[in-house]
């Protein structure tokens, strides 16, 4: 009896909350900075849409993914979901219920700041599944004081990088008298992480594809690609430049190595800088540059690792309002708030004040940029192929080869077989 009464009461409570308030719910994975950003946007959005509040919920990435799919599939979707483009694609693939925003976007005027390629990125199976809101830039960071300590400059080439990294390991760059420093901080534990690190090496070296090109050709055994892949694998294995635990490191552990002052070189995402500029963290003791060049004649770059954007589930409780808010996220105010709180944006046609040198590096990019190639949007089988690729790489990292060259050749053949099987 009690049970029924309780259930009844809850059901009632649930109905009233969903019916009365004009509340938009957004699910993202940007943590406290993201929440602050959405709060700010909610404030501004209220001016033109009185009575509407925007509530954002930040989940860890893996929870975001599972929850979004389950919710959309069971018609319990939030109003908007916000994440990296390739993650939204997976949600599209598993639910088929993300609204096509082509018409919405077509009717917007103030979008000149988005490039052809930005729009290409947002499109999947001829549908515009996100409005692109933040370019995700990832540069190569090095501890300033460590470079001084070992008497080196910011490395340009991969050979330079290895030399400096070795000195970081051997020459006690933090001067604490202990051999407890590493050259690089990387990670490999989760399926996406390892490939993500490889993306940085590959695109940073000016190459265009990590695994497969738009024609469906597997690229990893082409000479340039092979060279980068082998160096990548060696970084994890024989070079001894990373923490021995790296193979089980995911984001928190990688950050712990960086923020615990153990590694001299690392990935710097545009969203990291705000925290790392503070005293409690790296206190601004790092320089950002392009990723090391591996190959002569190819321009090394800062990597555009993706596009974060907003998507609207077709079964969003407040569909029209959700679309309105999605559009609003490209307005000047929303974009300025984005840059201020999260460190990234797609437009820069507003005043930027009080940003550190390192934040300006990303806010007003003057460096070469090389963008992730988004194979997901070309090959619908890509996620499965990539999962297989990851599985192979993870297995081989714990079983280092003498002949990496032969290994990569064989791996490429296996990937071709897998591709053929998936394409059928």
């Amino acid at each position, binding site marked *: 009896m*009690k*049970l029924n009464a*309780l*259930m009844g009461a*809850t*059901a009632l*409570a*649930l109905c009233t909350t969903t019916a009365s308030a004009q509340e938009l*719910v957004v699910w993202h*994975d*940007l*943590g*406290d*900075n993201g*929440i*602050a950003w959405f709060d700010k946007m909610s404030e501004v959005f209220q001016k033109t849409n009185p009575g509407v509040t925007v*509530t*954002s*919920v*930040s*989940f*860890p*990435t893996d*929870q975001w993914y599972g*929850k979004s799919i*389950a*919710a959309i599939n*069971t018609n*319990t979707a939030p109003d908007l979901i916000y994440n990296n483009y390739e993650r939204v694609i997976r949600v599209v693939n598993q639910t088929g219920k993300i609204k096509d925003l082509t018409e919405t976007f077509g009717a917007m005027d103030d979008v000149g700041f988005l490039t052809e390629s930005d729009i290409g990125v947002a499109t999947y199976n001829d549908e515009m599944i996100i409005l692109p809101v933040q370019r995700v830039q990832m540069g190569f960071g090095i501890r300033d004081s460590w470079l001084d300590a070992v008497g080196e400059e910011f490395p340009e080439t991969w050979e330079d990088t290895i030399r400096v990294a070795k000195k970081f390991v051997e020459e006690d760059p933090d001067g*604490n008298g*202990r051999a*407890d420093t590493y050259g690089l901080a990387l990670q490999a534990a989760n399926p996406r992480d390892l490939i993500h690190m490889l993306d940085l090496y590959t695109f940073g070296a000016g190459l265009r594809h990590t695994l497969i090109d738009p024609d469906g050709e597997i690229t990893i055994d082409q000479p340039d690609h092979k060279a980068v892949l082998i160096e990548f694998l060696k970084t994890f294995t024989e070079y001894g430049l990373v923490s021995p635990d790296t193979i089980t490191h*995911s*984001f*928190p552990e*990688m*950050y*712990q190595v*960086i*923020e*615990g*002052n153990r590694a001299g070189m690392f990935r710097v995402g545009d*969203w*990291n800088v705000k*925290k790392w500029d503070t005293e*409690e963290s790296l206190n601004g003791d790092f320089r950002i540059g392009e990723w090391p060049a591996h190959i002569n004649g190819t321009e090394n770059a800062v990597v555009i690792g993706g596009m974060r954007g907003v998507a609207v589930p077709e079964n969003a409780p407040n569909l029209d309002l959700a679309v309105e808010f999605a559009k609003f996220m490209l307005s000047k105010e929303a974009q300025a708030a984005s840059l201020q709180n999260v460190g990234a944006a797609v437009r820069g046609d507003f005043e930027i004040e009080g940003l550190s040198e390192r934040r300006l590096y990303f806010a007003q990019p003057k460096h070469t940029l090389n963008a992730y190639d988004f194979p997901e949007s070309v090959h619908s089988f890509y996620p499965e192929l990539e999962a297989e690729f990851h599985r192979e790489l993870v297995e081989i990292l714990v079983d280092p080869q003498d002949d990496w060259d032969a290994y990569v050749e064989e791996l490429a053949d296996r990937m071709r077989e897998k591709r053929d099987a998936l394409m059928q």
Partner: protein
Amino acid sequence: MTRSLPIRIGAYTLATVVSIFFVFPYLWMLSASFKDTDSILTAPLQLIPETFNFDAYRDIAVMSGIPLSTYIWNSVWITFASTVFTLLTTGFGAYAIYRAPNLPGFGLLRVGFLLVIMYPYMLLVLPVYLVMFQLGLLGTMTGIILFLSVGPIQFFLFEQFFRSIPSEVIEAAQMDKASEAKILLRIVAPMARPVVMTVALITILLNWAQWFPILVISRSTDTYTLPVALLSLNSELGVNFQGIMALATLTTLPVVVIYLMTQKYVIEGMISGAVKG
């Protein structure tokens, strides 16, 4: 039987070493939560920090936009409510099955209950999600509390206790034409006080530790408890090691205190609950 001194010393040394194995992680966690980064690196084994640093506790004051106090409150409320609910449902359920084991359906109920215990808990994820959705309980505290109210050890404890009541006691009452309500309230309830205490304690300890169902049923971080928050600290923005240890300390401390105060009931309760299963 007396033993020679060296043997006794040897035995105590061995038991102490083994006990350190069990207790060390707590001490290490506690001390790490007060250390600064440098002393974690320089002296990972030092258990008493040179200076007590409360920064880590300040760092976790707000996590994912939710104040720490909310997580604590959720933990307390979910634990409390699910414990009360478990006591009521399993207590009455076990009593009914004990008094009338041959009523149609009761045998099946018991078997069904045993099946539930054996199903891999973590793989109830999706179906529980669906069930909660169909009941309209997704993302609600009620949903979480109801799900946590299914407890195997608790059921067996009650069952075992009821079986230990001498049947003459109840038969005598029946001779006096006492109503069922009277039998329950006047005769069984007073005797059941210790077992209710034990079950309550064990349920508190078990449900405080729950994380997976809460993670699954929640639709926002508003309903996360301390253990779920602890597991969710791995956002891409990273969190420092001391913060993790501070949160782990807060998650562990209450159960350690309760356990140390009531260890006899807890251990004995766990034993008899398990022995019956």
